[in-house]
């Protein structure tokens, strides 16, 4: 059974093989995403992150989830040589580059705790898979053509891995390089496959900010594979990526 809903400012879909339509777990997952949005959305004036950015809450009063996100962000910043940084040039914090993967992973953990083994949770193009599809095969994931969103340019098969794609579409300044303060223009899309969507998301964010060098970050990182598309439509893949290609 597959259900879709808008949450966290993006479409969210959850498919659970073998779960009936009225299974309460669907509501639990969507409620969880609403909770994440209320806490971490920089576009909500009343969110905890907005209050922190206005210096209205001292660190000792931050929620446990907020402290965890800041801690994970710091760790990611260190592991990526500073290319992942939730602190923006204006001095405000925007953890969206790590919250999405973290939240999807948590939602998947919720499904596992309820005993579900075959599922996927997808939010805004980032995905956590579990087991196999209804057909009994690994989940088939299509990478969107960054130049034409109706097309797919690559298909990969995964079972349990997480997949995250960072990208700029049209002229949007979605991710920028914390080191130079500008949006990378030489690449348009970078997809990372990792042991879970949290790992994939944080490294996709950091690697995309590096521009063309980003694929090397993924190549060097153990357990991650990547598919990068540049502004000319040339894709570069890490040495183990082909194993996922269907």
């Amino acid at each position, binding site marked *: 059974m597959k259900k879709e809903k808008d949450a966290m400012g993006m479409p969210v879909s959850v498919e659970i093989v073998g779960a009936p339509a009225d299974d309460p777990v669907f509501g639990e997952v969507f409620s969880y995403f609403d909770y994440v949005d209320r806490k971490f959305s920089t576009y909500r004036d009343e969110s905890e992150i907005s209050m922190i950015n206005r210096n209205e809450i001292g660190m000792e009063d931050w929620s446990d989830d907020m402290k965890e996100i800041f801690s994970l962000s710091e760790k990611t910043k*260190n592991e990526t040589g500073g290319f992942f940084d939730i602190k923006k040039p204006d001095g405000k914090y925007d953890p969206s580059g790590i919250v999405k993967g973290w939240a999807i992973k948590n939602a998947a953990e919720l499904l596992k705790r309820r005993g579900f083994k075959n599922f996927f949770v997808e939010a805004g193009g980032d995905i956590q898979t579990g087991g196999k599809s209804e057909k009994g095969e690994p989940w088939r994931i299509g*990478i969107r053509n960054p130049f034409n969103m109706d097309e797919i*340019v*690559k*298909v990969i098969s995964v079972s349990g891995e997480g997949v995250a794609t960072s990208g700029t579409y049209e002229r949007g300044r979605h991710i920028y390089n914390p080191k130079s303060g500008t949006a990378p223009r030489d690449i348009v899309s970078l997809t990372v496959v990792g042991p879970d969507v949290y790992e994939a998301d944080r490294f996709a964010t950091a690697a995309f900010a590096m521009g063309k060098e980003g*694929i090397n970050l993924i190549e060097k990182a153990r357990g991650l594979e990547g598919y990068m598309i540049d502004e000319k439509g040339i894709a570069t893949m890490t040495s183990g990526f*082909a194993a996922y290609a*269907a």
Partner: protein
Amino acid sequence: MKKLLFSFLLITAFAFYVLFNSSKSVSLSLPSNGSSETSKSLSQGGDAQMHYFPADSGNTQPSGGMMSGQMGMMSRSYRDGTYTGDVVDAYFGNVQVSATVKNGKISDVQFLQYPADRRTSIEINMQAMPVLVQEAIQSQSSNVDIVSGATQTSQGFQQSLASALSKAR
């Protein structure tokens, strides 16, 4: 004779234990040069893990970073003032901090001493990289279960819409 042998084995086992523990990596990561906004993390023997950060100049509020562990320390009420901590041997060198309390709460922690540079950063050495396979992207006609990619409408539009709708609830 047996006692002597047993004692020797015990001492050897202990020696291996000490050697094994001292060879465990202690991570100390410092930002690259030129950054005036630094945050440093220190691992002391695997127990307390405390993260500190300097305040922005002219701003005594915590500037960011995070606190983990020892939350009991953070939630108590303290007397206002600035306090200097002990110099602590942190394996790679000495660490000493000073804490500033304002309105009964810790508002800032500064490093007075920290160990000499031990960076952990990923170095991208282009010469050492293998040549990665490239291909021109092509539209695929396969059926898929899920699509990965940024959503079509711009991020700003979607987020703005979400925030407007949240006020409408």
